[in-house]
């Protein structure tokens, strides 16, 4: 029976049958949706740690004092260099960041809280480092900045510093939903010869001791960060690489899509925590 014939025969039975059919279709749709939702949610329900704690809360009094004092915080050397670079003309156009963006204290305020985000031009996820590199190449037409170079870390630290104290606030919507899902998948995927996921340490066991170290919740709210272990400032992707190699896993390069998706997931997970850049850790 084709649809129109069925509709005619139902109409013959009166409006009551028509309503019954609509109700049936509706409840069927509802059941299907519920099953689909349950199937997608069961794999790995994204969780945020509660209560949310920045890594600085797990650090020693000495480290906390270093981060809190702008004259003692070694990361400030990079942020100050970034402030100088902001004013320096560069590239064919001879333009500085300030020529377009003005005073960073006003124009860059709150910007770091929204990254990584989907770049409308490329429809790809871009983090703060990526945005600075892009601006430098396209707008200034200057020598590209290398990932993890002191110059890029300095500018990133300076820009992120303008959001210090402001809560991380990434929006997850249809634009970046796929990146978010991939980031979550990476977060819960076991990795490397040690076969551990990010979640097993930083979601399920934060606060416990791994040898002499306390496991933190693994947030990115203080990056770029000065690590005493590194004796320099480093990016969140450098920290990812440290974890990946500790798991004896293949280590993707800086700026890899896998890291960007993970960075988005972590930003969502850290929503509400204040930006601390430039942070200090052991």
């Amino acid at each position: 029976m084709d649809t129109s014939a069925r509709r005619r025969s139902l109409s013959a039975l009166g409006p009551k049958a028509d309503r019954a059919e609509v109700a049936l279709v509706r409840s069927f749709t509802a059941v299907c949706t519920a099953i689909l939702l349950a199937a997608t949610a069961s794999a790995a329900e994204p969780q945020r740690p509660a209560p949310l704690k920045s890594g600085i809360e797990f650090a020693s009094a000495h480290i906390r004092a270093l981060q809190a004092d702008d004259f003692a915080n070694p990361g400030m050397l990079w942020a100050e260099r970034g402030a100088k670079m902001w004013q320096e003309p560069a590239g064919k156009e001879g333009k500085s960041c300030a020529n377009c963006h003005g005073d960073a204290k006003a124009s860059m305020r709150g910007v770091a809280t929204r990254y990584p985000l989907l770049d409308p031009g490329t429809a790809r996820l871009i983090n703060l480092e990526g945005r600075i590199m892009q601006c430098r190449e396209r707008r200034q037409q200057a020598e590209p900045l290398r990932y993890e170079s002191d110059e890029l870390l300095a500018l990133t630290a300076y820009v992120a510093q303008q959001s210090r104290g402001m809560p991380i606030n990434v929006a997850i919507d249809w634009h970046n939903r796929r990146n978010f899902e991939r980031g979550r998948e990476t977060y819960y995927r076991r990795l490397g010869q040690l076969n551990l996921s990010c979640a097993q340490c930083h979601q399920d066991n934060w606060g416990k001791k791994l040898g002499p170290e306390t496991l933190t919740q693994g947030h990115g709210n203080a990056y770029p960060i000065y690590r005493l272990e590194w004796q320099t400032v480093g990016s969140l992707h450098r920290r990812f690489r440290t974890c990946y190699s500790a798991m004896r896993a293949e280590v993707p390069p800086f700026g890899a899509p896998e890291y960007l998706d993970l960075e988005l997931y972590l930003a969502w997970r850290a929503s509400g925590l204040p930006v601390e850049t430039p942070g200090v850790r052991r």
Partner: protein
Amino acid sequence: MRGLAWLAVCGVAAGCAVPAPGPLVSYRVTGDAIIAPLTADAGDPARGRRVFEGRDGNCFLCHTVPEGRFMGNLASPLAGVGARLNEGQLRLRIVDSMRLNRDTIMPSYYRTDGLNQVAPAWRGKPLLAAQEIEDVVAYLLTLR
């Protein structure tokens, strides 16, 4: 999983039992234990203690033992473990703890399949050699 499936295919094609992958010694799981030792040489507790603290074992990162320092508390303390578990039970828990608890944080120390994105330097190699597993089992049995 892909590794397991591939092994199963090989096993069927060759018409024989599924061998352990790569250089691994094959073993049989009985209940929650591997009863037979992986090697002919008996485990040495002193060497086992060194593996326990060494870079490849790194057991102390998660477990406490008597007379240890800087130890973690991610996993159960091992004082008295030699009385709580027998040799075969200890062996399986080190070889492949995931067989007993899919979600365990304990790495499988004698397994090379079903892992993701293993770095080339470690691919196809277990975390510990068969003899090291036997040595650690011998050491843990002294913790009574």
